[in-house]
């Protein structure tokens, strides 16, 4: 059972198509694991449809319908690619699409202390990565210039008094200093999106930051 859900504002921004790709991936992955999120997303899609229904129309150019029919005729032959087989029990389908397969296809880079990461997508706006944290390891204390979304895919982590398991998502921002620690029998795999570089509080992690690229 998912206990830590995504807030409405993020779901609505995703439904509206206004989130950076990195965050969209976390939302899509979480909704793949959580029916509650799926329901709320579809409700926001419906609201989008209602807004579109009530929107002020802007006249199409002359001959637009004919041009569209020509476009359809021209692309008639275009095939919709066959859906990719998703058969990894840990990675949700949208994440598998970025990795190019299951867990065995992830190209991990070591980040020290047994922690590994794999960047899936990075832009000026935001970055999304997979994190591998061995059980018992704590990610150094850091605060955020912007927002960080962390979704648990395997194992669990604890941050202060909160426990996050598969499907749970933690939202951290400037105000939150957090030290997530992987707990439980399994090593923890997370999908994390950040919209600004993290600021580590200690000196050594700060030196490590360029290597971590986070």
């Amino acid at each position, binding site marked *: 059972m998912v206990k830590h859900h995504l807030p409405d504002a993020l779901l*609505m921004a995703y439904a509206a198509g*206004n989130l950076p790709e990195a965050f969209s991936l976390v939302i899509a992955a979480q909704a793949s694991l959580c029916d509650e999120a799926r329901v709320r997303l579809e409700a926001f899609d*419906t609201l*989008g*449809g*209602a807004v579109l229904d009530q929107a002020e129309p802007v006249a199409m150019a002359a001959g*637009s319908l004919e041009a569209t029919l020509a476009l359809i005729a021209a692309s008639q032959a275009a095939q919709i690619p066959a859906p990719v087989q998703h058969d990894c029990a840990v990675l949700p389908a949208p994440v598998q699409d970025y990795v190019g397969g299951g867990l065995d296809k992830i190209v991990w880079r070591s980040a020290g202390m047994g922690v590994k990461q794999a960047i899936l997508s990075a832009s000026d706006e935001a970055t999304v990565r997979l994190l591998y944290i061995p059980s018992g390891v704590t990610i150094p204390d850091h605060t955020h210039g912007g927002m960080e979304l962390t979704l648990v895919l395997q194992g669990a982590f604890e941050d202060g008094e909160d426990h996050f398991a598969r499907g749970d998502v933690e939202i951290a921002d400037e105000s939150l200093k957090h030290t997530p620690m992987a707990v439980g029998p399994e090593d923890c795999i997370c999908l994390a999106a950040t919209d600004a570089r993290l600021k580590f509080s200690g000196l050594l992690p700060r030196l490590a930051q360029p290597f971590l690229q986070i």
Partner: protein
Amino acid sequence: MNSFTGPRANRMTLAQKYLKFHVKREASAWRGKGVWTRNKFLIQAARCPVEYPSDEKKPLYQRGCFLMLVLRSVGLGDGTATVTKIDSQEQSWADLMERIKTRQDQAAFAALFAHFAPRIKGFLIKSGASESLAEECTQEAMATLWHKAHLFDPSRASLSTWVFTIARNKKTDMLRKQRRPEPEDLPWGQEAEPDQADVLELQEESDRLSKAVANLPEKQRHLVEKAYFGDMSHSEIATETGIPLGTIKSRIRLALERLRHEMK
């Protein structure tokens, strides 16, 4: 063709005044039934309804014919051969989609185009697209609607919802130039025929939502529009939209639970 504004409005003939009165009355009568708004009605009325499927639709057909004649006589109807098979007003969007799907029906597509294309274009312009990019994007979105017609399931989403998601994805693709990851697809395709009761209820819920949006106080409506159409970031979005989403959520939840149950 189907506009009462612009230069034409200044030279309104008696016939047009009469027509306008009728159109208004008809449109408001149909609005109560759900999907039909004034614009949709006008498009339909201006085009020739050549057949009616049942006796109960006969009066509608007759009124449609009469209006069509009036429209033609004042030069508003195009009466062209491309669009001849739009029958009764109660034809729902879902039926038009079905005709595109099964018969590659261009007339059905034209009716959907007339309604949705200008709205998609407006949406894209408000999202920051130039006039020409919005036009191009809209044409592509409408072409996608044609190509993906077989994926549209009216028991899962209303057509407005579905068209919105297509337009939004085009926006992500062409304006933001990004990929859009989607949640894992659920195997909805197992049910051969969508349940008509589900289709109807979902349509009603969606219509109710549209009305709720239309009836919002100006300022609030603007905020909701901006959240969807503008480039509002998540931190700027007011969580409280003032629109009751509870009912639509319960409907979607119910459909999802049924599906999960079937998958077991």
